């Protein structure tokens, strides 16, 4: 087991990146922090700077305008980190599949920056807070075995 990925799985600090989403997924991410769902049980907390982030929670299908900003966030984050694509748009572009102004999904953009970045896909429109927490915990448990 790699101790760096073990550390991330034990204390995932979440940074929230909106790449053109309709705000539904954003509100569900904020729901994860409320008393009912309390993501701090797993050590997670929302941080304000990508330098502190371990998990980038990306929502939205990545519009042309937001792509360079998202790439800058990926470069500014301290490695190792993982990316969680929250919502159907971020996972597979969803209803924006043939839209001219969207360049997603998230995995496609992260692969152009660095092929080794691990991407968790959490589908749903929007995913329920339970689904987000379940996706995070499943992904972080797998993370203990792999190198990030």
């Amino acid at each position: 087991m790699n101790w760096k990925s073990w550390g991330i799985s034990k204390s995932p600090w979440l940074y929230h990146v909106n790449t053109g989403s309709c705000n539904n997924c954003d509100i569900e991410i904020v729901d994860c922090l409320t008393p009912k769902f309390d993501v701090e049980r797993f050590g997670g907390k929302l941080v304000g700077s990508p330098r502190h982030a371990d998990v980038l929670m990306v929502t939205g299908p990545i519009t042309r305008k937001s792509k360079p900003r998202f790439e800058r966030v990926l470069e500014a984050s301290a490695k190792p980190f993982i990316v969680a694509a929250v919502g159907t748009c971020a996972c597979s572009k969803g209803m924006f599949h043939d839209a001219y102004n969207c360049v997603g999904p998230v995995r496609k953009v992260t692969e152009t920056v660095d092929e080794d970045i691990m991407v968790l896909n959490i589908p749903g429109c929007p995913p329920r807070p339970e689904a987000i927490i379940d996706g995070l915990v499943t992904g972080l448990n797998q993370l203990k075995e792999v190198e990030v």
Partner: protein
Amino acid sequence: MVGSLVFDFFVFPGLVFTLAVGIIASWVVRKVSALIQWRVGPPLLQPAYDIAKLFGKENIIPSGSSEWSYLIAPLFGPAGLLLASIILVKANYLGTSFIGDVIVVLYLLVLPALSVILGGMSTGNPLSSMGSNRELRLMVAYELPLLLAITAAIVNSGGLKLVTFTAQPVVASISGSLGFVAALLCIQAELGFIPFDTPEAETELMGGPLIEYSGPLLGLYKISHLMGLLVLPLFLVTVFLGGFSTGWGALWGALKYVLVLVGIILIKNTNPRLRSDQALKFFWYGAAPLALLSLVLAVVGNLIGLGWV
């Protein structure tokens, strides 16, 4: 001799002890906050996980920063608090004390805030220099009432040694209890807790002075914060509440420490954040007159020879 010195610095009152108690105290802060907010809260070793993870991450040096001060600044906080912790614990536990050690501890307690200011100023990020600016303003605000309250305690107990405070609890007099209230509010600001968390305001400054720090250097700031959670309440307990001693006295002292800590957490969780100017007004027009009153009462009590004033 050298062996016992190394033991002092790295094991018992030093690094290992301070870190262990700091981790538990930090967990208590998060758990009690969670319980007040009707949540479950993090597991016991969560602060330790956080620090272990931060030491495994990449250390980014921002391109616009002044590298040397950026790299050196995080070291001052833990170093100062480590020395303060050793002086405080040895004065309580072994009774070893020297004239003026309370002043030494006061100066050492300034170091964490200075290290945050220096680090924030050297990153070249506008948000972090704004945070440093606010931290500096907050320091100007809380140092005055803190020093007045400690001076009142010194006059009240009649000595500059930490041991003289522990002989009889200062808080058992009117001047001592007023000074204790003022000093508790200053400690709240020194720890950077709500209502005095303008420097790190997460919702507007995104972490303030620490915004550009990542990896091990951020971990050092976190270590400095959790050492502060041990040292600052312990300083209050020593100066105002009679400290602790060996045997059953250690348990009684730990109880007093936990009470001060829980008081700080309750203030943290039941108040909104003050603006910088409101905090300055609060300390200069609210806490400082209180501490001054406590000092005047202590001097008068000393002159007419009444112990309880």
